[in-house]
């Protein structure tokens, strides 16, 4: 004759067993593929997010600018990486994918929970991709005379991020978050390589002590290190890209 308490314990154990089996079954049945490109910061940040959540996935490398029939089929509108395939769902646009990942695998959220903090993270992420990238890359590369002006203008934009990260280990606080993945994949591990091959020291220690500290902290995070393009090979490729843009 079992007590009500024993019955409760047995019931909880059974529920846990079923939950684990259900989870394992889902894991086995789950199909998760990422189409990416090794130097694309947009696809690298999705890799960081998936690793952050500890979700296994299959990676398919696109050899851009050649586009595989698979890419064209999965992303006919933009024909770009990254594309995430999750079972029968196809997602594109890196910020959209990151938000999907955070909602779908709810362990270790990387977006802030507070609505205002979340809004700020989203605002700064757009700022990185829509303001810093065009000015800090295309405008800079194309500037024949007046490159100093373009460099200064880029530094003015980067100053906003310097303020945002002041007093924090990461943009996400004590651990990396959404904005660290967006800004990290874009600035130190993509744009900075372009700046290096152009002989530009953009994020100087004197002007940007907090961002330099942030970059050092990022380098300590295993999943970030695992998801960044190898430096020498990246700089070599950046050289080619910069030359190609200058000659058009």
């Amino acid at each position, binding site marked *: 004759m079992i007590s009500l308490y024993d019955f409760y314990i047995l019931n909880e154990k059974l529920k846990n067993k079923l939950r684990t089996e259900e989870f394992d079954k889902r894991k086995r049945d789950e199909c998760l593929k990422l189409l990416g490109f090794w130097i694309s910061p947009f696809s690298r940040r999705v890799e960081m997010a998936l690793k952050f959540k500890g979700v296994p996935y299959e990676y398919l490398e696109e050899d851009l600018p050649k586009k595989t029939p698979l890419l064209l089929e999965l992303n006919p*509108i933009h024909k770009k990486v990254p594309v995430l395939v999750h079972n029968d769902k196809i997602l*594109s*646009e890196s910020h959209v994918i990151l*938000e*999907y990942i955070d909602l779908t695998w709810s362990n270790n959220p990387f977006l802030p929970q507070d*609505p*205002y903090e*979340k809004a700020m993270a*989203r*605002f700064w992420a757009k700022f990185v991709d829509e303001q810093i990238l065009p000015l800090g890359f295309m405008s800079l590369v194309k500037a024949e005379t007046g490159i100093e002006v373009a460099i200064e203008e880029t530094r003015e934009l980067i100053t906003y991020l310097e303020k945002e990260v002041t007093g924090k280990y990461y943009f996400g606080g004590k651990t990396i978050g959404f904005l660290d993945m967006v800004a990290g994949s874009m600035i130190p591990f993509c744009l900075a390589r372009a700046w290096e091959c152009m002989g530009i020291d953009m994020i100087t220690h004197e002007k940007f002590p907090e961002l330099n500290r942030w970059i050092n902290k990022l380098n300590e995070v295993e999943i970030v290190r695992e998801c960044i393009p190898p430096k020498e090979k990246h700089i070599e490729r950046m050289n080619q890209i910069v030359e190609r843009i200058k000659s058009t």
Partner: protein
Amino acid sequence: MAEKEEVKLLGIWASPFSRRIEMALKLKGIAYDYVEESLDNKSPLLLALNPIHKKVPVLVHNGKAILESHVVLEYIDETWKHNPILPQDPYDRSKARFFAKLVDEQIFNAGFVSMTKAEQQGREDLAEQTRELITYLEKELVGKDFLGGKSVGFLDLVAGSMIPFCLERGWEGMGLQVITDDKFPEYKRWVKNLEKVESVTDCIPPKEKHIEHMNFMVGRFRSS
């Protein structure tokens, strides 16, 4: 028991980006103060709240400023959780966000530039590009009353404020026929549905004044 909340919206009557915020606030029944800004004479308040972009809309909620219309819409939905405008399902939510970007980036660019081209062929080419892009929305609307399903949602506010109640006014002013009845029956049906929703129709610029304004903006763009 709600405390007195301070909600203020800085906007411009002709801006689809600020009109969609008004629609969202009305849909949620949120009381707010509206501050009309001028493109050519931006207030010190706007410049203080949005020093980076100096643009509307800016939502101020209890002293905090939120910028960028998509970010503001998501903030509104997360803060006032009744009558949700974003889909609950993560994938549907992603699709809504994806198409919202398509509207504001590709459709807006092609659609606006189509008005500014000096030669007719240039205008027609861009009108055709815009039609191709709007076809994606046409497909999304099949079998639905709204892009959000049975009721107006995030994508309806973004696409509605931008296409029928902004770009179409510009095209009308230019004499450009972009969204034809034969090719876009679902779109036409959707617009009729939108016109029955008070929170939408209360928040659209008055038509004649808007067409005049769009003509003026196109002229200004061409001469710059």
